[in-house]
Each structure stands twice: as structure tokens, then as C-alpha cells.
């Protein structure tokens, strides 16, 4: 059978870079980032984050082929800013936002757990 190996969608091959940058010559202040072994989950999130940035003029990603596990991100920024900076900022922001999310999730879970235990104790009398 010619089924691809199961790890292909998440494991970088030997010598494969996670992110590759390429300047887009057709448009000013634009760059193309190829992110390997990722899919819509990350692509959409980053695109969303980038679009929140007022200095980003354009951000879009594309999965070139459903069987190629990568996405191509295009960023265009205002002249006082570079696409790479925008990309880095977006990632940083996303990371912190996600940490916050995790924190809140845990707290909320703990809270629920404690109240549950308390409730059980009450029942036991």
C-alpha cells in the first residue's frame, strides 16, 4: 500500500525547517512564510491574530495541497513595520493569550472541583 506514514503530518523530516521566510517581490513590504507540518489550526489562529494588528495590511494563509502538511502565510505590513515583526508579535501575543486561557481554565476547573468536594462533604453530613 502507498499510504503515507502516520507521523508525516506532525514530524519534521531530517533537515526540514519549521518556518521558511521568503520576500515577496511583487508587492512592497510583504513576505511569504511557509510553516511546515501545520494545518488550519495554527494557520487560522495566526491569521486571525495578525488581522487584529492595525499595521498589518494583509494576512492570508493557504494550504497548497491537502496532502502537503504545511501552510503558506502571506503578510503585508505598513512601511514602518516588517512582516517578520508582525509575525513574531502575533505569535508572542498568541502564546500569552493561550497561557492566560490555560490559567483561567485551570482555575475554573479547580474551583468547580472544590465546590464539588464541599458539596459532597455536606451531603455526608
Amino acid at each position, binding site marked *: 500500500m502507498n499510504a503515507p506514514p502516520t507521523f508525516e503530518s506532525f514530524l519534521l523530516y531530517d533537515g526540514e525547517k519549521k518556518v521558511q521566510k521568503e520576500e*515577496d517581490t*511583487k*508587492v512592497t513590504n*510583504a513576505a511569504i512564510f511557509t510553516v511546515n507540518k501545520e494545518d488550519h489550526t495554527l494557520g487560522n489562529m495566526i*491569521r*486571525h491574530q495578525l*488581522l*487584529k494588528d492595525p499595521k498589518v*495590511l*494583509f*494576512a*492570508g*494563509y*493557504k494550504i497548497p*495541497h*491537502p*496532502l*502537503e502538511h504545511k501552510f*503558506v502565510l*502571506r503578510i*503585508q505590513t505598513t512601511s514602518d513595520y516588517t512582516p517578520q515583526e508582525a509575525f513574531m508579535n502575533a505569535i508572542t501575543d498568541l502564546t500569552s493569550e493561550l497561557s492566560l486561557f490555560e490559567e483561567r481554565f485551570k482555575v475554573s476547573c479547580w474551583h468547580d472541583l472544590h465546590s464539588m468536594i464541599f458539596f459532597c462533604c455536606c451531603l455526608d453530613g
Partner: protein
Amino acid sequence: MLRRPTPGENEEDILKMQEEFLRKKRQNQNLQPAAQVVNLRTEPIKRPNTNEQEIRKPSKYAQSKGLKNHSEKRSKSNDTVGNSVITDVYEKNTEKPVEKKLDGEDDKVYYPTILPFVLGDIVEKNLDTVVEFDYKPMPPEGFPVVRKQNKDSKATKYIYQKNLNKIKKNIVDKMDVDEPSCSNNKQNTINLPDRSYILTSENSDDIHNENIKILSKMSEKEILEEQQKLFSNLDPKVVDFIKSRRMQNENSTRQTLKLNERDDINKLATVNQNVEMDTSTQEIENDTLWENDVLSHPEIQNWLHFDSLEKDKLQWMEGLDESKNIKPDEPYEARFDFKGYLLPYTMEYTDMTKTLYHHGEEPHRPGYTITELIELTRSTITQQRVMALNTIAGILQYHSAGTYKDIIEIPLSKLFFIIRIAMDENKVIILEPALKAMRNLVYNKLDEASLDALIGFEEGNLQPCFENDKSEIEELESKEAELKDFHLAEIDLIAALLRTDILQRIYYILESIKPSFNCVQYCLQILTRLGRDSVETAKRICEMEHLMNSIITNFVPVTGVNFVFKPQVVYNGKPVLAAIKLLRVLSLQTEEICNILLMKYNILAPISVYLSSAVDRSYGLRIQTESYCILSNLLYFGLSYDSAISLCPVILTALYKHVQGTDINVEASVLAATHAAVVLQLINNILKHNLNDFLTFKTEVYKLLKEGLLKWFGQLSQMEHYTCAHLRILCSALDCCYTVIEIEQLPVKFVSDALKQLSYSKGFQNVINNLSSCSNLLSKIENKDLYSVKNLISLKCTVIDSAQKVLPILKVASPIPLLMSLFKLLTIVNQKEISRIFLDHVWNYLQRLSKCVPSLSDNWFTRMETNFVFYVMKLSVMCNVDESKKDVMYAVANKLCYTLRVDKKYELDFLFESIVFNKDWFTAERLLNLVNLTDADGFSRALTAIEDIRQCYRRVINLNYKDTGANVVLRKWMEPILPRDWIYLPILMLYSKNQEAESIPHVSGDHAQKMSAQIATEKEFIITCSLEWILFNELCFSDLVNDIDVTDRFCRIMCVFLCDNSLFLQPKIRMLLQKCTNVLFKKKSAFNFDKQLTGLNNFQDFYTQFLEQFQAVSYGDDVFSACVLVPLAQKHNVKWRKLIWSEYAGCLRALDCPEQLLCYEVNEYLYPEETDESLIKSYHRALSCNLLRPDTIMHKIASHHVHIFKNRSQIQNT
């Protein structure tokens, strides 16, 4: 522990396991198997209610069985087994009681004996001894009464009825027991009749008494209740029937004396007629039945079985209800007369038509339905089968002529099987209509006639392949062999026919049955149609030696052909025309088949004899015509040169005779003209091959040709009327001339002189006058007007709903074949002066053609016309037509591009090079359209780089034609080289290539980079060229692209954005795109995105893809944005707006477009105000979530609609 089988193991594993088990068992006798069957039936079955057994009445079945075997005693005494019926049966049926254990068989495995079924099929047996059902629990005497056989029971009666009577009698027999006193003593208050009026059988009295008895037990109220119950249960018709019987019988009984009813029946036939008869006839005399012309026959009383009016039996002859009529437009079941002609709902009842009435569920309607006919084909009565098959044959004939198109759907596949089954009959009387029906089904007479009509024209040598489109089988992803018969017949009738072993059957018919001439002809015609199907089928026929040998020996004998045709000639050593036609059709297919025909069957021997034989009869002439055609076909494949040369003296004699004697007047014989034309075609063929051996005849041939040509030219120029059939001599002569000039490379002066004379003649003017009316391309007939069947390909040569029933080009006075040959000759004579005169003649036609959308371009017969138009174009290129005419010519050439079929690549290339992509043909007037563009944008490439554009298109279309060699049968004759929208072809091709999941192998390194760079430049080149050409066409030849829908054009431009991720950002392409869209935006009113797109997926998918692309790679490009914005105007469907504002909200941030690039005014996006609330919510969300950049058009739209909505709701609230 023994292993148990698991899923996935197969038989072998099980066997291995068994082996292992047996081996182990041998070692250890006490081995317990994993599972064992224990027989639990060793002891007699104990029924729970044993004490009730005495009370239970034994069933009749058991009793009857017991009585029969004289085992009454046993059933009484054998108490140990038990009286239960089941045990009894069980005991009888099992040979060996299972409880007996075999010695030495110590394992407890039980091998069940198979019990036969307790109940077998119910079979009515004629028992001699009538079984008496012992009903009486105890006879009065204590012993069973001895019964006597009832001797007057007749053998004619049903056994069941006999027994039933017995039973009923038994019931009547009174028991000698105390009866309830009330039943006897009760006063019978109801007036019960003393005899039955309804029953007429011999035991009617018994039954009647029985009924009386039951009735007498009931009170009046009960009886009435029961009556009501019966009325409600019974069919009212039955009730009426019973009532009427009673009335009838009452009458009779009143007048007859005490006549026994059985005597009545006996006496009825006697002369001494009973009174009853009189009364019944009197009563029925008023019946309308007697008005029937059969029953009103004066002698009717003397006919057998017609002495009494059996109304039920003769009801079907009843007079018809004329008043029954049908509303217009209401569908009704189709009925056909004996010729297979569809009948109207009602028609006049005359002596001619009366045979069509009185049957089926609609006796008042004339004719037979298809269902009835199908039923009748399987009738046991031969006449009915013959009639049904003949009718079906007639239906199919009308159907294949297209008469029933749009009127009735004939279930061809069903009929096909019916006919094929009927063909297996060996009686000639049935075989003949069956073969006729099959012939009419598969062999389209009109197609064949039309093709035969082209014999003698050069185009007639080419034949279409009748292979059905089997792509459906591929779509189903199955193989032909896997399909069910009926399914295959639905897809391809011919394939289904072949599957039924038709060849073998035909062989048997021809060889063993040796039927009449008609049957033979039908068989041969069926074979002819099969031979046209595909190379494989033709080969199958050829390789079936016994069949071919039978045909050759019986119907293509080596003998002279000068005889009078009679049907008796068949199997009499005389040639049959249909067989020779079959050989011709087979010889069309491939060189291989021709070789088989020559080597195996030596067809040259009979053909040479036919050709050498002197003929003066029409049948012989026709045989010779076919023979000449076969020889021509063989020469096409480069075979049988020698025999052609050896036949040259004969051919020359024939030519000489024709030059001397054959005219092209209307009065002349068409057969002779065809014969002459075929001879000339053969000569043409020999000339083309330029054989050395022919040199000796050359001078003679040239001389005769010249003489003939001049004679026929002379006749043509004088003629008032002409027919196409006669002109074929001239056509062939012209074709010969063309070949001679081509070979000799010499201008022939007499030809140009003759042409010049002809061009001014009145006769030629007559010919030209008919041109437009006989044109297929101008006819505006659409394919849907033509008869066609999905599973059986046809040439569509009949036109329904028009004054003339054939295609315009096939009309009697069609000049197109002649003009084709003439213009072909003109292109090689190449004398500008003469050419111009002829071009002027067809100028009118060209003008009309330039203005219309060419119709019927995929029709086989249109090929002649496209050829003609091509030669006209070629001629006009050669003689440099005036500037004023160029525009019309260019338009015609443009149309011709997408009219040409796949085999015309050379012609297309010529057109591309000489006209379509040739600067000289762009008139100044047209180019003026470019002026306002050229300066500002530097757009002039279309003119400077036209050669590049042509190369681009050539490459995309793959115009590298190659000579396919001798090919007489054209397989893909329906496919065009170019689609109607061919100018967009490169874009669509790139688009579809991009859609395909192409996985470029990841090779790094210089070479790979070079390759990808090369591909990118190639792409850029193609897109630039095609966009330039599209823009040029839109601007300069807008009238030529106008018949392509604007929306389709726009979508094709949109495809450019989807072709590549960044090409549209290239300044040049961007500029071109902007111009192209701008031109289309001017026709914005025509945009309709809800319609079905031609050549693309539906717009929904397409637009989604487009938005995705925009979101991913656009960089907010203005032109791209402008295209995205087109379907978003308020006038278009709201779903496009919803799509972008909700699902593809990611586009919104980048989406902006300066107003001057927009397709619509800004106001068209703002008004009429949006009312869809979900969309307004989306607008609101986009505004509040910062999805929009301020000062963009999208921001403007969203805030406008949200604002208006807020205002509106405020007003509503206040």
C-alpha cells in the same frame, strides 16, 4: 483445550483443525469435543394435556390417512405411542427409530436423520374411492353404515366439487339424535321460496334445502341483519348479477310448466324450442348486443354455440360508447394500428377500422397498446404473434423515422428483448416479422439511405462510425461484461445484441432455415448495422468463418449480374445486393479487415466478374455500383492494385459509355448517374495512387475526362432544373480534374475556360440560388429537433416539425456537394479572375453565415458544407479579396473555427495562420476601436505580437496534426476541435491544471529551479497572450464573442486569478485583467450568477474558491477586489453577500477597491436597503470586531446598512 475457529480463518484452517481433532481423539478416546449435539428425542414426546386426548377430536387429515391405510384399529389400540397426530406422522416417516444406538459408536455425536416434510405439496388427486369424512361421532346402529358408491356422479366434475357435494350431503343427513324440539315446531313465519332460482347445478335442491334449514332457524330480524352483512361484504356487481338471475329465472318459471332445469338445457337445442328460450330471447332482443354486425347475421341461429345469447361471453362485441371522449392535453395510453401507426384517441368506426376495437381495458378505443402487443408476441396462437411482431416492426419503423419524437416514448430496450426472443423461432412465418422488427430497430433505413445518397461524391467515401458512446459504463466503474443484459441494452443496444449471440443465430437462419428473400435481406441488413458499429464488431463478423462463407457462397456467387431481380433469386446462385453492401461496409473499417476479406474470402473474384459483366438492368447496375465502391475502398487502403489495373479496360469502357450516354438532365436515370459517378471516383482513386501500370491508360482517361467534363458542364449551364443526384457525375469529374491537375502540376486551360463559361451561365445561377435554403449551418435547426436515441446512435438526418422531413443539405436540389467539388477545384486552378466571380456568387450566403450562429455543426452531413465553406475561405485567401469583403470573410472564418470537427486540424491551422491570426484581415474599421486605448496604456501587442499569440493557441490546442493515413471510417466525427469559447481555452486549461492535484516531485537543486522558472514563464506567456487576444476580440470583434454569455465570459476571466498565486500581481497581466474586466463591466446588466455556468462548476463552488484565493494570496489587489465585489451588489442573490460576510469574513480586511474600478456604482451596494437580519447582524459584528479597515468600501457598506437598520427599528419602536 481445543482451538475454536476465529474470524478470518478459511476452510483450509477448519480442515486442519478437524484433522488435528481426529488425531487427538484417536489417541485419547475420552476426549471431549468442544461442542456436541445431544439427541433429546429418544423418548416419546409427552404432551402436557394427556388427559384431554380422549376429548380431542382427531383431525380430518389424520382420520383420512388412517382410513386409507386401514389402520383404524391401530389408532385406537396403539395407546402407548399416543394419539397425538404429530407422533403418529413422525413415527411413520422415520425409517429407523433414533433411540437405537449403534454398537461401538461411543461418541455422543448425533447425526440427525433428515425428516421429510410432514406436509407435501397439495395435489389434487383423482381418487377412485371417495373419502368419506366421518362426521358422525356415533352412528345410530353402533357400527358405521355401509355406503353405496354414488354412481351418477360424473367424471367431468371437479374432484373437489364432487367431494364437497358429498360433504354437504353428509351435513344434510340428519342425525338420529334428539333434536331440539323448537327447530321443528317453530312456526315458519317467513315466506321462504320452495326452490333456488340462482343455483342451477344438479344438487341445487340439496343446497337450497340446506339454506332453507339455516334460514328457518333464524328469526326475520337475524335474516335481515345477515342480508345487510352480505350486501356490505359482496361486490355490488355480484349482488346485481344474483338479483338479475333471479328475475330471469322467475320469468321463465312462471311460463314454463314444471320443467326440470336440466331438461331445459337439453331441449334448448332441439327444434321444439322451449318456452324459456323464447322468453330469454324476447328479453334480450332489446339488447344492444344484437345490433353488432356479427350477431345480427340472419343465419346466426344455425351457428354452433350461437343459438343462445351468452351475454357474458359476447359482451365484448357490444356496441361502442361513442360519447367517450378525452379532454385535450390529457395524456392517454398510446394505441397503434396494424402498421404501427399511432392512433388518435377516437376515430371513425368503419369497416376498415373495426378490427382495431373491442379488446383490452378500453374497448371503445382503436388499436393495440405496446403492453398488449408484448403480451401477444408470446401468445400460443401463431397468428397473434405474427400480428404483434408486424405491428411492433411498424412502430419501430415509424419511430426510427422520428415520427414519434416528443409524442411517445417507445421502450426500445424492452422491445429489443421481446424481438430477440421471437427471433429464436424457427418457423419462417414468425421469423420474418421478428427479423423485420429487429431490422427496423437497429438498422436505421433513413440513415442508410442518406449515406447511400452520398455515394458518388468524394465525401461519400468517408463513412461515420456508428459506435455508441460507452462512457457511461466507465462512469459506473464497471466493465461491460459485468452489466446486466437490460442495463447494457439501456446503454448500448448493439452491444446487447451482440451479447445475445446474434451472429450465430443469423448464421443458423441463413444456413439451415434458408428463409425467404425478405428474411435474408433483413439478416444482412442487421449485419450491416453491426458492421458499422466498431472495428471489433466488424472483425468479429469477418472472423466468423462459417457465417461469412455462408454469405459469400449463397449471396455473392461468382456469376454475371445481368438478370431480372425477383425475390426467388435468393439461394439460387444469384448475388444479393444487401450482401454486397455488407461487404462494402465491412471493407470500410480497417486495412486488416480488407485483407481478411481479400485473402480468406477472395471477394475480388465475384467483384471482378460483376464489374466485367454486361448489365442493362437496374439491379445489376446497383450491384456494380456497390462493387465499384468496394474496389475504391480497397484502393484507399492501398490494396488490390493489380486487380484494379487488370480491370482498367472494363472501367474505361464503362467510362466511355457514360461519357457517351449518361446525361445529367432531370429526366435521366439516377442509377446510371450514380454508376457513372462511382466509376469516376474509382478512376480518381487510381489516379491518386499514381501507379506506373496505369500510365498506358492515362491518355485515354484524360481524353474521356475532358470530353465528359465539357459535356456535363454544357448540360449544367443550360439546365433550368437539376437534382443533386445527377450532379454527382459532375462532382466526380471535377474531383478527377483536381487530382489530374495536382499530379501533373499543369494548368489545364480547357478547365479554366469551362469554369469561366459556367460562372456566367444561367444554369449555374439556378444552382447558386438554392444555396442558402439548402444550408445546414444557416438552418437554425437545433439538435433537439432531430430524432435521436441514447442507446442507439443515429445520424439525425430527419427533421421533425418542419415542412421538409430531411436536413436541408439532403434536399433534392442541394447544390452544396457540387459547390464543394467546384471550389476545391478552383483552389487548385488558382486563377484570381475566375475565383472572384465564383466568390461573388456565394457572397450572399457568406454574408448570412457571418451573421448567424452556425447550427447543426455536429451533424455528419454538415461536413460537406463546412468543407465547402473552408474552400471558399481558402480561395478568398488566395485571391486577395477586397478590403470591403474582408470583414465578412473574417467573421465566417471565425465561426468556421469552432464548426470544424476533430479530423480537420489541418484546415484549422490554415485558418489560424491565414485569416484568424493574420493582421491583414483586421479591417481598419475594426482596429479603430483600439485607438482610445493604445496610446494611454501601451496596448498594441495584439498587433505586433500576433504571431506569438497564434503560437500560444496552437500549442494549447495541440494543432500538430498528423496525417492519419487511409481512414475511411471516422470515429470521432461529432467532436469539434475547438469549443465555442475557444478564445478562453488556454485560461481554462491552466485553471483545470491548477485544480488537479498535481504533485510536483520535490527535487531541489539548480535544475528543479530552472524547471519551475520555465513553467512559470510559460504560464505567464500563455496568460498574457490569451488575455491580449481576449481583449482584442472583446474590443474589435465584439459581435463575434457576443453570443457567449457575459457571465460565462466574466467567470473565465476570474479563472485567471485562480490559475496562479501571484501571476495577477504582474503589472502587465494586472493591466490586461483590468481592461478585460472593464469591458465586461460595461455589460453589467447581463450578469446573472444564479444560472448554470457552461463549462465550469456551479457558481457557488466557484465563488467560494475565488474568495478563498482572495483571502489567502490577494494582498488586497484592486482588480481582484473589483471582481470579488461584483456579485455583492444588492441586485444579486443575498447568498453571495452572506457568504463573504460570515464564512469568509477574513477577506473583509483586505477588500477594498477604488470607485472607478468598481463594476457597479457605490449606490448599488447601498440601495435598496438590506432587510435580511442575519446579514445585518454580520455587518454589525464585522464593524464591532474590527474586521474592517475604516474608509474602505466594505466599511462603508456595513455601516450604511447597520445605520439604516437602526433608524428603521427606532421608528418602528416609537
